[in-house]
């Protein structure tokens, strides 16, 4: 039975590794300017974690195989070096890994979160509410009009609570249910939560950020490839959480201008 267990452990370990090695289920292609650092971090971690995983399972299996069901006269032995050797090995190996990943990971993180958006980044506001995303573009005046939460009315499609009658800056704001951005242009995404917690996740863009009710947070990123991608909510927000999504279209500058004009006409 022990030998069977040893074999099973090895089989399971190898079987678990196969889909990783064959890239059966992987993240989609990266279309962002910062994502390569994240992907590199992921590959490095996978290599190190994978080796550690396989080695640990293999050694466990080996020792189970070797030392179970011993002969009655077998002598007890101690692994040479004892605990001291293992502690030193763990401190050195794991410590080095930890340091390396930690230090190199800082850059990947800082790129996304600790840098300011450039001055000519295009601002877009996204509002998350049960259970949809809505987007607002500032229009030709480049300014967002103020929000009046008490004016929010889904029925009349005033999703943001804009007072276009009295606020000059709101008059040219463009509100859409889909997000479109020009390719290769930095976007400054202003995130506003209408009710409870939500989150903004686009896998291809390598961005994920929670909306914080009561606090306006922001993200900045640049998309490098045109296409149609899904924005999904990843913070449990109620019964419609599973269905809360929007489409992100990355368009050429000309296509984007056309799109924006069409959207403006629909306001």
């Amino acid at each position, binding site marked *: 039975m022990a030998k069977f267990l040893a074999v099973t452990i090895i089989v*399971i370990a190898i079987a678990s590794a196969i889909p990783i090695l064959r890239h059966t289920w992987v*993240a989609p292609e990266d279309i962002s300017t910062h994502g390569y650092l994240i992907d590199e971090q992921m590959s490095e971690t996978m290599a190190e974690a994978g080796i550690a995983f396989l080695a640990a399972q293999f050694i466990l299996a080996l020792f189970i195989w070797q030392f179970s069901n011993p002969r009655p006269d077998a002598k*007890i032995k101690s692994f040479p070096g004892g605990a001291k050797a293992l502690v030193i090995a*763990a401190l050195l190996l794991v410590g080095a890994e930890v340091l390396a990943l930690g230090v190199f990971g800082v850059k990947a993180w800082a790129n996304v979160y600790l840098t300011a958006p450039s001055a000519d980044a295009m601002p877009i506001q996204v509002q998350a509410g049960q259970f949809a995303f809505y987007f607002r573009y500032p229009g030709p005046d480049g300014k967002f009009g103020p929000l009046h939460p008490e004016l929010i009315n889904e029925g009349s499609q005033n999703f943001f609570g804009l007072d276009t009658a009295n606020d000059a800056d709101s008059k040219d704001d463009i509100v859409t249910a889909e997000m479109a951005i020009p390719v290769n242009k930095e976007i400054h995404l202003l995130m506003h939560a209408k009710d409870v917690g939500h989150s903004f996740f686009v896998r291809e863009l390598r961005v*994920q950020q929670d909306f914080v009710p009561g606090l306006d947070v922001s993200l900045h990123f640049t998309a490098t490839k045109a296409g149609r991608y899904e924005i999904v909510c990843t913070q*449990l927000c109620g019964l419609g959480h599973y269905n809360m999504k929007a489409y992100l279209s990355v368009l050429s500058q000309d296509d984007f201008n056309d799109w924006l004009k069409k959207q403006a006409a629909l306001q």
Partner: protein
Amino acid sequence: MHDMSAHSVQHHAPPTSFIRKHVFSLDHKVIGKQYYALALVAALSGMLLSWFMRIHLGWTNAAIPGLQLLSKTGAPGGVITPEFYLQLMTMHGTIMVFFVLTTAPFAAFGNFFLPIQVGAEDMPFPRFNMMSFWVTFAAFLVLMSSFILGDGPTLGGWTQYAPLNSVGSVAGPGQGLGVVLWMISIALFCVGQLLGALNFITTTLDLRVKGMSMMRLPLTAWAWFITSCMGLTAFAVLMPACILVILDHVAGTSFFVPSYSVINDQLQPHSGGSTLLWQHLFWFFGHPEVYIAIVPGIGIVSHVLITNMRKPMLSQRVLIYCMGALAVLSYMVYGHHMFVSGMNPVSALAFSFPTLVITIPATIVVLIWTFSLYGSKLRINSASLFALGFISMFVSGGVSGFFLAQPSIDIMLHATYFVVGHFHMVMGVAAMFGIFSATYFWFPKMTGRMMNESLGRVHFWLSFVGAYCIFMPFHYLGMAGNIRRYSSFPDDFLQPLLPVHKWITVAALVTGAAQLIFVYNLIHSRFWGKPAPDNPWEATSLEWSTATPPPFDNFGGKHPVVYHDPCQYGVQSSVGDYVMQTSPEQVKTEHDEK
């Protein structure tokens, strides 16, 4: 005159009535068994809920006959609605984390065995101990009552994030009364566990018998002691947080709900609250909580393996220091649940480093276990199989933690099935294996009968292979971007993943059914198992030196004296290849703690 027995347990006479013996008992052994029974009921309930969840995730429109009985509106025709899915999920997580993983390895086995392992007659405060169980039981009842009261249980997940947890029923079914009941239940649970921790700590520090120095305590005793210290800090923080949420619901305060919240076109009457505050308070509790769930298992696996390897671990002390290190570090890492929460991104880096560092003591523990197997005389039985399985599972679960510890990688893995796979591996499987191992190991001592060994092995094989079949694919789903807490998967990119979900569902149902073998074994052996000798495993610690099952005062009026540490295996003594802690026999040995 001064009472000479000022620092011994207040002797209480053995109870005679049924109520005093089996219901409102002051005896730590009975309390331990009561906790175990509670954990068993909770585990089966939680497992049933997971079956409903998995069936729905595999086949969204599947009708489960009879499910309408569990909810007035949640399962019309037995088909689970999105809100009911979330309610099931919330209850599954809450029941499992609190009423199984904190209760069984810590409260159940700890209550039964800690006093015996230190040589005491009982815990120093038996009435608080009894209260601790009944308060926990009441907490369970309050939690389960949310199924039948109001519009059902809360749907906000076991993490109950604000402001969803505080705005009330306008945010969804179960978010009014359901949340309040959840908060009351958990606050009660915290009180119960604090009372338990009080007893565990004082037992370990003050009731050790002559010769039982701290370093001579078995690793299970250390694990329970360290876990109690963690519980003391963690539960004392969660309770006030729950109270503040209750106030937001019933008293109109705004601790967690910010201004300008608009739900269903209505401006909510709260203002100024901090949503992140809840996350900080919750995770300050929540991260130590998961170590509370695993550290007793680490103690149990060590204890079971030492006995079954017939040799001590390479270093008992290093294992103790590692458990302590895990406990201390567990308070510094909680922000890794909040990397993308909107908290200061610099804090993310500050939390990431200790999270990576905590890998080190965990690795040392695994290395010591594994390399202690070298040169051992490993005995294979149900208890040792689950202990070995624990090592494998702990490695698998721990390795995925390595990814999540890095904020940049967490951008892609946060809130995906990768996280769900990680914590199910370490908590849902490894910690459960610890409970199983402890059960097979200690059942003879607790009941006087042996469990059926063949059924135990079948249980192991189905659980071991089954658990990998269920939870390994979670990691792949997560890497492909499968979001968690979705009741179904309408997104385009999730369609290719649906077959994986079907596979997981089948594996879950089969593995779950295998657990019924364990339940059958428990019940059958309790009444008809082979009578057990006092020391069936030829083990050294104090619980094996007393009768099976132990008498009312644990040692039959005698007070044991301890001469050795619990690791005297692989020696030559008059009884075999081991020396019991209570045996005055001196033998040639490599190391014996003083």
